[in-house]
């Protein structure tokens, strides 16, 4: 109780300081609907205006590096190489603040099949490698007893644009298939061995809808809102899980949660967890004065207050928009990270 009172007071204080401040951010498109909601509510509550351009994770990281925005946003954590580049050229660490959980689901177009098709990681990898070519392949049939799969060829559909969704998808496939790891690898855009590409979630969904027998991958939010059929995936514990908010949250309940929150949730060991899930992050400099966009201590404080609000009060808006809320471990880790934010060597959030 005491903690909440302190938090509220801190927020009010921050709000008083921050009135009239405008913050800017750029990055991932995937959490854009959620961020739009956050920032509009936050503006009404505190008067701090936040401009967010959903130009893609890569663009957000580029702009953060150039120091033209207060924060970046990305669906994939920065690589060690990229972190070292920030440290070397900007002289600061980059803090990852998770805001929500999302999932990537296999979407398909199978006329006449009403049950949710079941997949396993290795089978998905073999399909995307072009090794399983028909829906009635024995490997798929074995996973789906009682479902009559048609003898249609599988048309693999994937993102043609670089995307955090692709990163999560390929990371999962690389974890469950050594051949995928060796031949294709992990990335926001990879060299696909099979299939055709659509631009954006809407592009993939459009192709999946248009082509009978197509199998693609989409963000859960997109598949749910547009009512595209999506399948269940077998997790490491052997359970077939269909992505929903509960199975997403379960996926993030890891016993050894890393303090920098740069954790991969794909192929989660959690028994009830959906295996193709990921955080989406907001990225800020730890030494905020190193970012040219942060012009004053007041702006630094406003930014820290915003992030603090997102990981606590902001979370209540997640589920209505089909994003899962952060698990407790992620909130604790982020609190510690935010407490470490500095402006000219001084802590931004008072202890």
């Amino acid at each position, binding site marked *: 109780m005491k903690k909440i009172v302190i938090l509220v007071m801190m927020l009010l204080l921050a709000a008083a300081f921050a009135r009239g401040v405008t913050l800017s951010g750029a990055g991932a498109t995937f959490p854009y609907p959620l961020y739009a909601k956050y920032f509009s509510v936050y503006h009404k509550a505190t008067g701090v205006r936040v401009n967010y351009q959903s130009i893609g994770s890569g663009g957000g*990281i580029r702009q953060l590096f150039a120091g033209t925005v207060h924060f970046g946003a990305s669906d994939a954590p920065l690589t060690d190489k990229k972190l070292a580049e920030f440290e070397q050229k900007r002289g600061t660490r980059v803090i990852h603040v998770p805001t929500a959980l999302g999932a990537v689901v296999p979407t398909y177009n199978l006329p006449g099949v009403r049950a949710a098709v079941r997949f396993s990681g290795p089978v998905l990898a073999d399909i995307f490698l072009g090794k399983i070519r028909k829906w009635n392949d024995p490997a798929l049939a074995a996973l789906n007893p009682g479902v009559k799969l048609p003898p249609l060829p599988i048309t693999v559909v994937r993102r043609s644009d670089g995307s955090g969704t692709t990163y999560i998808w390929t990371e999962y496939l690389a974890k469950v298939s050594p051949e995928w790891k060796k031949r294709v690898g992990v990335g926001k*855009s990879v060299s696909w061995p099979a299939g055709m590409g659509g631009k954006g979630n809407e592009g993939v969904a459009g192709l999946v809808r*248009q082509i009978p027998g197509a199998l693609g991958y989409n963000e859960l939010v997109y598949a749910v809102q547009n009512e595209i059929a999506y399948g269940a995936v077998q997790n490491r514990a052997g359970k077939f899980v269909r992505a929903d908010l509960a199975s997403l949250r379960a996926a993030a309940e890891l016993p050894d949660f890393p303090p920098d929150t740069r954790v991969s949730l794909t192929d989660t060991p959690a028994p009830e967890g959906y295996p193709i899930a990921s955080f989406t992050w907001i990225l800020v400099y730890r030494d905020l004065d190193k970012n040219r966009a942060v012009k004053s201590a007041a702006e630094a404080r406003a930014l820290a207050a915003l992030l603090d609000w997102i990981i606590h009060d902001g979370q209540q808006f997640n589920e209505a928009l089909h994003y899962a809320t952060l698990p407790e471990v992620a909130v604790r880790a982020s609190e510690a990270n935010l407490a470490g934010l500095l402006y000219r060597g001084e802590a931004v959030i008072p202890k």
Partner: protein
Amino acid sequence: MRSKIYGKPGDRVFTALLVVLGLTVMLVAALMAWELGFGGREAFRAFGFWGFLRGTAWDAVAEQFGAWPFLVGTLITSAVALALAFLPALAAAIAVAEYAPRWLGELVAYLIDLLAALPSVVYGLWGIFVLVPLVRDHVEQPLFLWSAEHAPALMGVLGPPTGIGMLSAVLVLALMIVPYASSLARDAIRLVPRSQREAMYALGATRWEVVRRVVLPYARGGIFAGVILALARAIGETMAVTMLIGNSGQLPYSVFGPAATMASVIANEFAEAEGGLQLSSLLAVGFLLMLLSLAVNLVADFILRRMSVGEGRK
């Protein structure tokens, strides 16, 4: 040499203004080329100019980049689209300028020009929702099944009959460039002097003979200019092609199967490229695209000079 007429100060200011504005356009073009080439220097250094041009791998994970599949895709789609669009565009121009009654000609010309004003994303959407199912169900699948029965060797050339791919992209592209070729051809045909036609009629020629023997040869410069404009448009077209072509840079391409073009790969990957070699390679592709357009224009200019009739002839 400066004649008296340009001696007035106002004229001199005006001349200077024109020169400056004209130079600005050239400067902007040069700056763009430099910026693209400079941005792509890392890619050219890593793979060599020819190595990058002829490289067939595009793998952001292994950091191997080559522009060849996209160059081939651009050349094939724009050349085939132009071949498909040329005759209908010319026919429309002849019909409007020579045969149709004035009111009908105006109407048809207006509608054709309207095609040029449609945003390309509209073409893309129309392609996905109308053309693709049509092409898939009535062209690709029957052909594919026929070849499976009678000519199995053809199946590899045809590729998967899913509707999304080279064929649909080329058809939409052809439709998009018709107005460019057609409207310049129409103007060129209208500019053929009356005296030329009358001379031919006086010799007893029919209307078609006049068109074939006098109008078309006389207007060929303008017609060809339209063709070049259409080709340049086809080379640079991004949105509609990206939506329809299937975006797969894996050679060899097939008739129905997915492919990729230079413009489409840039549109696809630029937003998420985090810098480094991938971004540099995309800029290098942009640079090559600019070189390709330049080459097309130079060749066109050369042919145009040799073809044009009348005062422009050198």
